[in-house]
Structures are given as structure tokens and as C-alpha cells.
């Protein structure tokens, strides 16, 4: 789908130019939305209209636009994007354009080019030689980089209006603990299967509560069945998962009985220490010290994971990236090709990930706290649903719906 905003003005009503423009769009199998229309009061007053033209592909759109241009309906953007060189490392030029997470294109040397790796709150860097445009976080700006400034020549495409009600239309519902979850999870499972069939990746963001509530085994099943292509988490999830693998407890509570174990409070520190001793989680797996659990499943099934550190971490585990910017970079690398993100029981990592995802990624946020879901929705546009639920029942149901 491609779209462009065109503008036409003058005596477009009396001359039938406006109806002709609309007919032309439809005759060429495009569709339109009238964004704005103002009609002159007196006979001698001109009228004007602004409409968004939609077409199946950029080439198709080009055909329609060419025809409309002949009738005097011109696209809003007739100029190339404005580029300014960054003068300082890590600093955008003052008038820099700040991105949204919606699909964005820039006009460079007369041609529209898609911005790679679209992510909100970044700048757009353009390579003047190749014309390649990509999102650039402020911390990654190098002196001399060409950044897009102002708003000329930038086209942001809103999310497609749902054509088929089935796919993901159950998304977009307000956050509520009072929605029929069974149905929702069934449809989610269907969507996940469709995503995998389409060759896209599924990202899971998980918080330590997952392990505390005993849902670790379900996540393991998802990983082993190929429904997880990348995992974002923190020291907490990994530590307690390893603790559960080594001691059968999470934060000292027995996962099979739900009762605290004597001296269980130091199990997680021993788990951390064990891994620190062998150097990495992978080493622990290789040396058969770590034999089960979520992290073990990731290693044995080759699922990439990013453990981002925080100020509250114990240890941390050697695999945890403590430099926040480096952690962000690692996460960005995994975000490519993601079609769906499942965020379960995690506030910090869910929001961090949400900030990085393009609006086109379907996002499911599961948390016992409705505020987390709302917070995520407030950050920016995305196709998402929130499910207020504890992670154990959610994952159990999901595994069941996926026949795992």
C-alpha cells in the first residue's frame, strides 16, 4: 500500500475538476480520503481540497499521481528533504526531524526512499552517495553525518486501515480486565501461526514474574516449538530461570510446592555466581551445568537473546549488557524482521522495546497491572492489545491454543 496527499484548488466544483479527480482515482483502482475541503462562497471564489490517495503499490500510486497532476492536483511534497551536517558527536543539528514509529519515506534527488529501521524519537540520517536513509538515535550521531531537518520532503504513512476485519482487528481494544480472554488467546494463537507462516519473527519480552509464577516451562515450550525468534529480558528473568534450573526455586520459593525453601534466599546469588564462574550462560550449557529452563532452551535452539542491565541488578550475570546504549544497540539489531512482539510481565523492557518497534509490528502486552499496558499505548501509535492477566494463566492458555 502506498499513499500520497494531493492538493487541488480553484474552481474545482463548477468545472467538475474535483469530481473528475475522484473518479480518476477510482477508475485507476485507487481509493481516497478527503482530508480537507473548503468551498468558495461566491461564484468567483475558488475552492480547495486536500485528499489522501491510496494505491496498491508505489508504481500504481505513481500512475495515479501523474494523471491527477495533469488535472492540477499536486502532491504536497514537491521538494527534496533538507539535509544538515551534524557538527558534534552525539548531537543532532538544531532543526532535526524527530521520527515517529510509522512507516516513513523521504524524498531525495526526486525519488521517494523508505527510511530503514524506523523507530520513534530518532533522527533520519541520509547517505548522500547512495541515498540510503536510516533512523539514527542521538547517541549514535557522528560528526559529519547528514541529518534530515525541517519537515519538507518527509512522508509519514499512517497505519493501513484494516481491510480484512479478521486479521488483528481484535487488536485496538481498550485495556480492560473484563474481556473474554479465551477467545482473544485463540485468535492470538492463530495470528502467531500466520506470522510464522509468513516468515516473520516473533519477539518475546519477558519479566522475572514469569519465572516466579511458574510459567517458565510454558515459555520453554514456545521456544522449543519455534514460536520465539528473539528474547529480550533483564538480569532478573535470566537469574531466576537459572535458579529454578539449578535449585528448583525462584527467589527461594519452591516452584513445585509454592513454599519457601530454607536458606532459599541466597539461591539466586549462587546461581549468578555459578554462571559468573564459567564465564557465560552458553558455557554453562556446554559444560552441562545448566540443563533446563528458558535460557537453556534459547541456547540449545539458537534463539538470540538480549539481557539489558539495570540499576537494581544483583551480579549481574556476565551475559547482561550493562552499558545501556550498547544494550539498545543489541536490541535494535534483533528488531529487524519482527512481525509480532509479546511483552509479558515486564514494565521496563516492554516500554524500551515498544519505543524501538515500528508501528507495523503487532504488539501484545500481558501484565497483571493495567497501568503498564496503558503506558505502552500512550508512547506511540502501534497496533496492539493489552491483556490484563497474570503471566501463568496467559501462557498456559496460549500453549494450549497452540497445541503445545
Amino acid at each position, binding site marked *: 500500500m502506498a499513499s500520497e496527499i494531493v492538493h487541488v484548488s480553484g474552481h474545482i466544483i463548477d468545472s467538475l475538476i474535483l469530481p473528475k479527480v475522484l473518479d480518476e482515482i477510482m477508475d485507476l483502482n485507487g481509493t481516497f480520503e478527503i482530508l480537507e475541503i473548503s468551498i468558495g462562497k461566491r461564484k*468567483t471564489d475558488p475552492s480547495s481540497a486536500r485528499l489522501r490517495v491510496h494505491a496498491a503499490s508505489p508504481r500504481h500510486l505513481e500512475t495515479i499521481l501523474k494523471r491527477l497532476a495533469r488535472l492540477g492536483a499536486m502532491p504536497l511534497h514537491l521538494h527534496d528533504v533538507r539535509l544538515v551536517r551534524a557538527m558534534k558527536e552525539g548531537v543532532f543539528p538544531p532543526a532535526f526531524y524527530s521520527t515517529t514509529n510509522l512507516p516513513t519515506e523521504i524524498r531525495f534527488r526526486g525519488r521517494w526512499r523508505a527510511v530503514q529501521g524506523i523507530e520513534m524519537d530518532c533522527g533520519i540520517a541520509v547517505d548522500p552517495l547512495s541515498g540510503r536513509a536510516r533512523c539514527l538515535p542521538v547517541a549514535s550521531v557522528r560528526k559529519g553525518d547528514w541529518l534530515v531537518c525541517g519537515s519538507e520532503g518527509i512522508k509519514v504513512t499512517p497505519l493501513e486501515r484494516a481491510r480484512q476485519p479478521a486479521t488483528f482487528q481484535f487488536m485496538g481494544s481498550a485495556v480492560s480486565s473484563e474481556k473474554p480472554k479465551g477467545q482473544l488467546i485463540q485468535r492470538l494463537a492463530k495470528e502467531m501461526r500466520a506470522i510464522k507462516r509468513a516468515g516473520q519473527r516473533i519477539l518475546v519480552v519477558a519479566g522475572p514474574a514469569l519465572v516466579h509464577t511458574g510459567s517458565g516451562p510454558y515459555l520453554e515450550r514456545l521456544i522449543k516449538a519455534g514460536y520465539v525468534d528473539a528474547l529480550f529480558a533483564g538480569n532478573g528473568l535470566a537469574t531466576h530461570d537459572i535458579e529454578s534450573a539449578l535449585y528448583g526455586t525462584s527467589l527461594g520459593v519452591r516452584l513445585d510446592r509454592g513454599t519457601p525453601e530454607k536458606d532459599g534466599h541466597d539461591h539466586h546469588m549462587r546461581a549468578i555466581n555459578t554462571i559468573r564462574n564459567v564465564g557465560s550462560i552458553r558455557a554453562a550449557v556446554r559444560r552441562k551445568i545448566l540443563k533446563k529452563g528458558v535460557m537453556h532452551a534459547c541456547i540449545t535452539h539458537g534463539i538470540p537473546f538480549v539481557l539489558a542491565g539495570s540499576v537494581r541488578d544483583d551480579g549481574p550475570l556476565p551475559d547482561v549488557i550493562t552499558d545501556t546504549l550498547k544494550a539498545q544497540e543489541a536490541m535494535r539489531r534483533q528488531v529487524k524482521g519482527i512481525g509480532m512482539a509479546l511483552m509479558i510481565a515486564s514494565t521496563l523492557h516492554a516500554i524500551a522495546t515498544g519505543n524501538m518497534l515500528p508501528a507495523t509490528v503487532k504488539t501484545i502486552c500481558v501484565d497483571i497491572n493495567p497501568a503498564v499496558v496503558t503506558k505502552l499505548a500512550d508512547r506511540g501509535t502501534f497496533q496492539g492489545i493489552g491483556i490484563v492477566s497474570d503471566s501463568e494463566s496467559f501462557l498456559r492458555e496460549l500453549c494450549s491454543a497452540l497445541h503445545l
Partner: protein
Amino acid sequence: MCRPAYYTIAYEINPWMSLRRQANAGRARAQWERLYQLLTRTLGVRVDLLPPRSGLPDLVFTANAGLLQGRTLIRSNFRYPQRQQEEPVVERYFRRRGFRVVTLNPRYRFEGEGDALWLGKTLLFGFRFRSDAQAHEELTRILQARVLPLELVDQRFYHLDTCCCPLDAETVLWFPKAFDRYGRRVVERLAETISVSEADAKRFVCNAIVLPAPAGAKGGPGGKDIIVQAGLSTPLRRQLARRGFRLHEVNLSEFLKAGGSAKCLVLRLA
């Protein structure tokens, strides 16, 4: 008007022109002279003359110099470079005579009276092959009038004045096939139409000069004089006569070779 001293077929910028079908210079001059005499001597019209220029053969088609309103000339922005060279000549001529010359946004093409015809208080504006649709907006502002853009769809009738001729505020002589259904609907809603056959259209009968009825005119309700290319069909001749128009037929065959006839050779000053 402009004498055809240097008129020839030097390039091909419309389907009528062919370098292999040259205009006969002597005959062209004689035909032009006959039109000039008809206007000045017979019909008492005052005609100013723009001096011809070597290298600008189409300068004779003064209708395309621009569009006049009072003492302001809205100069043309020609589509083809061959005629673009006429622009400074036209500008200089009008400025010297005390006219104000305005130009439209250079991005948009506008070929003057060739594509702009008054139908009462509305300006019909032809676009596609020469003038651009967008130019109509600026014209609306400058003229403070309703300007209706009409798309031309037959490249043989590349200027509005080759296929459309307002006979008065409510009547239009035209070749409807030169327009699409939108254009046709617009014109039909605005005026009573007299359609010409394709044969007549190809003879450029729509490219006619209509003169307002002089005071104390004799000859029927129309009372207007129409100068039209000779050879129009009898049915059309009768139709126009029935409406009280006095027909003056002039043979302008040498100018047809460049895709123009009577109307193209004059620019209305008042």
C-alpha cells in the same frame, strides 16, 4: 495582429504542422491581407500591428501572446521553446504601449487567448496539450472571475479556440468530441451549444472571430459578424445565418498548415 513577413513552417509542434507541407509565403501574405482588410475596412475594427520578427514564424498567431484585461496583459508561458522566444517580444511591445504585463508562475504553462475564452462573465480555460490546469487558479485571482478548466482530449484540437467558440454569453459553437464527458457537461450546463461535424471541425470553423454587434446594426436578432474559415459546410452556414449572424468567409489555408485559422491570428485588445 502581426504581418506574416516571416511566416513559414519551421518546426512541428502540433499534429497539423509538417515540414514537408510548406506554406506558400506569397499566398499566406495575401490571405492575411484579406483578413486584415475585412476587419479594418469592411467591419471598421481598429487593428494594432505587432512588428514581425525573423526566426519567429508563429508570432502571427497573436491570440497566444496572452490574455488582456483592461490595460493588463497576462503574458503567456509557452510550452514549446520555439514559441517561448516570442515572450520577450510580446512583453516589450505591450510595455512600450503602456500596458501592465503580469506573468503567471513560470512552472505553469498558459497560452493566452488560445486556451482562454470568455463566455459571458465566466472564462473557459482549456488545458492539457498546451496550457496547464494549475494556471487557472492564478487566473482566477488576477481576473477576479470564475475560471473553469476544461480538459482537451483530442490532440488535433490542442488549443481551446480550435474546438470552441462562444458566440455570445449564452451560446457556444463547438466540437464536443474534443472534450471529455466532464467538459461537455460543464459547457452544456452553461450555454446552448451548436455542435459542428468533424469535417467542419477539421476545417477550423470553431476558430472564428466573433465581433460584437455594432450600434444600430441591421440584420436580424444576432446582428453579429463572424469571420470564419472559408469552406464550412452548408448546414452550418444555414444554422448560423438563422441565428442572425453575418458570416464573412476567409480562406486562410496557408495558416491551417500551422494549425491555426482566423481566431488565432488576432488578439483582442478591448
